[in-house]
């Protein structure tokens, strides 16, 4: 089984990636990077990462989230985070990235924030 499974769905012009697994060095990072690259190629630049199924992220995974964020921003888009587990919230707090990322625990609120 892949380290990170990503399912894509669309809500208006926002693309939601439902992620399940680990974002860690190796397969998990590569899966996220490939998904973001593909969305940009398809012109999808409003992206909501649903991390509800992600139980583990290491520093490489945090780095990949940051890279995704800066890549989308460079393209004039927005990347936001949904359903952070407590552990991931802690890691983003330790790294002061909670001040960078827009995070939500309700999908409807997250979707409205893109408008």
């Amino acid at each position: 089984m892949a380290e990170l499974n990503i399912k894509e769905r669309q809500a208006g012009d926002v693309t939601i990636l439902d992620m399940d697994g680990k974002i860690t060095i190796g397969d998990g990072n590569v899966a996220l990077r490939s998904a973001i690259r593909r969305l940009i190629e398809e012109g999808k630049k409003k992206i909501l990462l649903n991390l509800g199924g992600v139980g583990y992220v290491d520093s490489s995974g945090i780095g990949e989230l940051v890279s995704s964020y800066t890549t989308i921003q460079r393209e004039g888009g927005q990347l936001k985070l949904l359903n952070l587990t407590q552990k991931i919230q802690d890691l983003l707090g330790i790294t002061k990235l909670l001040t960078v990322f827009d995070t939500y625990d309700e999908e409807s609120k997250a979707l409205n924030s893109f408008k």
Partner: protein
Amino acid sequence: MTEETVELTLPSRVESVAEAAGAVADAARRLGFAEDALFGIDMAVREAVTNAVLHGNGGDESKPVEVALSGTDEGLVVTVRDRGQGFDPEAVADPTREENILKPSGRGILFMRTFMDEVSWARHPSGGTLVRMTKRK
């Protein structure tokens, strides 16, 4: 009294990261560490082995990464040795400073220091860098 030791010699590749973290976390679980502590120990070992594989040994699979754990009911010590040229942890930029916050890397040492009680680096007498991490109960 419960005692645990782990000794692993692993090739410098990404797969070694999960293997080392899994073996250490299993031993820590047998020593009775709580779930929160296990998360931190697993994370710190991942970061130390990632650094050894990618930076210390430069991804050269022929260079080993040695991981050792020695633990009792009171706590554990994990060491990770690479065959690199050594490095100065104080020279690593603070990833939480504004100018570094959007950099894609540089957070591993912060996690090691956050989740373990003591972390130190030394030159190994036979070459390479030895990182030593302590976690008390």
